[in-house]
């Protein structure tokens, strides 16, 4: 699950990490109130505020979603403009307001799951503020990697080594402490990724006006492990339902994995690998899949009916391909669900059904009685579905 920058920063602060102050505003007036406060702060070296769109996609800056303002009036105006934006299709409903940083140097630091080594891995670079993927292509030597110990985490010496390798200079102690804090954040919340870009040395002013530098987390991106949400009270509330397709919300309620795509052939499959394969074969047969849909293991009739409703909510769908290889899932249960779903459906869309494996014979009887179009092999099913979507009798 992705969460917003402001929420990610709260999780960092909870682990004692240095994050400059911020406020979240839902209206231009709220943004103005926050700006007044940050503009009056004597520590704010730039005497400006930054206003950042809170959306769950990258590329906010390029889309005009991150801007500066020097006065309260300007902040209100800029916030109004950003709140009217859609970034990659997502409406901006909140902005983050904070003091504009006087940046001395930008770094990159993240911790993530490394599947190859089965450990947590830190990625650091002295070239922060740009996409790390770009640095990896253009200047791979500028990136350093360090694995956490699977039993001990990141001991102090390893945190220091990492800090020296990244090149935090005189801020190495802060760098080491932040690395340890990122790991704590990861573990405390069961995150898949904690990414700080930029992690920056910024200049601020002491009460007497003298400048002071410190290393802070200027931006934050955290994704959470969906499998672990159940054991963290409060994290589920960070889910931005506004940013989700209503279909995703419906899918989650029935334990379905659903991803909408652009084609016109709806797919209902059990198992993620087989669901992807079914999409691939639809494409190979000359069609375009309308969705990825995994009904999971052991699906009963009601889950099948819910899956069918989800597929049919997409008005582009012209044909449906059902592909079930029963293991845990029983074919007759799915067949009964299909009969039930068809009886309820408002729109008549041609359907091709293939059910093999556990209780396939019982399923075949049910399907035949209900006059479903069936197919023996996956290739045949894909071809029939594509023909049906094109309006060709099969």
């Amino acid at each position, binding site marked *: 699950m992705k969460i917003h920058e402001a929420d990610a920063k709260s999780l960092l602060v909870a682990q004692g990490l240095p994050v400059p102050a911020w406020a979240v505003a839902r209206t231009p007036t709220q943004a103005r109130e926050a700006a007044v406060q940050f503009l009056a702060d004597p520590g704010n070296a730039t005497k400006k505020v930054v206003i950042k769109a809170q959306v769950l996609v990258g590329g906010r800056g390029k889309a005009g979603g991150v801007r500066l303002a020097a006065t309260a009036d300007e902040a209100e105006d800029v916030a109004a403009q950003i709140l009217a934006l859609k970034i990659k299709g997502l409406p901006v409903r909140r902005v983050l307001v904070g003091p504009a940083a006087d940046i001395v140097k930008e770094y990159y630091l993240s911790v993530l*799951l490394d*599947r*190859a080594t*089965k*450990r*947590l891995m830190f990625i650091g670079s002295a070239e922060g503020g740009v996409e790390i*993927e770009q640095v*990896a292509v253009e200047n791979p030597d500028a990136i350093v990697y360090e694995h956490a110990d*699977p*039993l001990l985490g990141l001991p102090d010496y390893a945190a220091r080594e990492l800090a020296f390798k990244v090149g935090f200079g005189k801020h190495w102690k802060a760098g080491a402490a932040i690395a340890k804090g990122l790991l704590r954040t*990861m*573990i405390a919340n*069961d995150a*898949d990724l904690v990414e700080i870009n930029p992690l920056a040395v910024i200049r601020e002013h002491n009460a007497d006006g003298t400048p002071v530098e410190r290393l802070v987390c200027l931006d934050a991106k955290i994704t959470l*492990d*969906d*499998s*672990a949400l159940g*054991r963290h009270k409060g994290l589920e509330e960070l889910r931005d339902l506004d940013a989700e397709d209503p279909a995703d919300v419906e899918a989650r309620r029935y334990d379905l*994995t659903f*991803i909408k*795509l652009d084609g016109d052939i709806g797919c209902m*499959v*059990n*198992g*993620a*690998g*087989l*669901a*992807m*394969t079914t*999409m*691939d*074969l*639809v*494409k*190979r047969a000359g069609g375009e*899949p309308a969705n*990825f849909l*995994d009904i999971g*293991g052991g699906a009963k009739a009601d889950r099948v009916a819910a899956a069918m409703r989800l597929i049919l909510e997409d008005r582009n769908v012209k044909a449906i391909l059902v592909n079930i*290889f*029963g*293991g*845990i899932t029983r074919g007759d249960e799915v067949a009964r669900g299909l009969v039930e779903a068809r009886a309820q459906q408002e729109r008549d869309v041609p359907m091709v059904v293939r059910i*093999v*494996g*556990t209780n396939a014979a019982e399923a075949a009887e049910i399907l035949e009685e209900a006059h479903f179009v069936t197919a023996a*092999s*996956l*290739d045949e099913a894909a071809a029939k579905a594509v023909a049906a979507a094109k309006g060709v009798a099969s």
Partner: protein
Amino acid sequence: MSILIGRDTRLVVQGITGREGEFHSRAMLEYGTPLVAGMTPGKGGQTALDGRVPVFDTVAEAVRETGANTSCIFVPAAGAPDAVLESVAAGIQTIFCITEGIPALDMISVVEKVRLAGARLIGPNCPGATSPGRAKVGIIPGSIHREGRVGVVSRSGTLTYEAVQAMTDAGLGQSTCVGIGGDPIVGTQHIDILRLFAEDPETDALVLIGEIGGSAEEEAAAWAAEHLPDMPKVAFIAGRTAPEGKRMGHAGAIISGGKGTAASKVAALEAAGFRVAGSPTELPKLLREAGYRG
């Protein structure tokens, strides 16, 4: 011979009295798997599967009393990492964890403990393995198999069934079929299974089933090119049409930053001497074309 499981297997099922555990244990027993013990805390002294399998309170006791050397875990996600640790502590050498939905971070220390003990963990979130005619551990339907000499390794569940069924329909039997699981952190990866097949005198050809995300297939391909240059090899990769940045069901199946695409995996496999099928049903034909005569 076969790999991982075979005639020497003595299986203990952790969570045998649960709904899933009992259903699949029955299927394993009926397949002929040497299922010697069940384990459910608090149910020691009872029996499962109509009195055919003794149940113990601990894995250690099951090992002591029955000589169990392999375990299969059907314990719910909250207790499954602990179940793996219990198997390791009891000296079990081959551990299958079928459970899905285990938080990824929980598995990091567990796989390390497995490694330090010199044991092997398959999964979690995997369908298990079958050595046709000898033993099946996990949830793969026994009916799809046929005895033979083709080794099958896959990250997926039902996609594996599809591929195995296609092989069986074409008369190509299998030595062992292994589903390694779709989670980001799994105990055993494609390359580890290829190493085992390479040492198995009864495996003469390979089927590798992969999917988008990560780089495990690429690493396995490079290893096979070097160590198994003459063995007929075929592969299938799921997710050619998957969009970037979307997690396709499996926690591991995601293309991000242009990495883990089907195209890069297909290219790596072809460069390593694999024939890559456009559909699972083409695997038998490609295996014949690669020179397999089994």
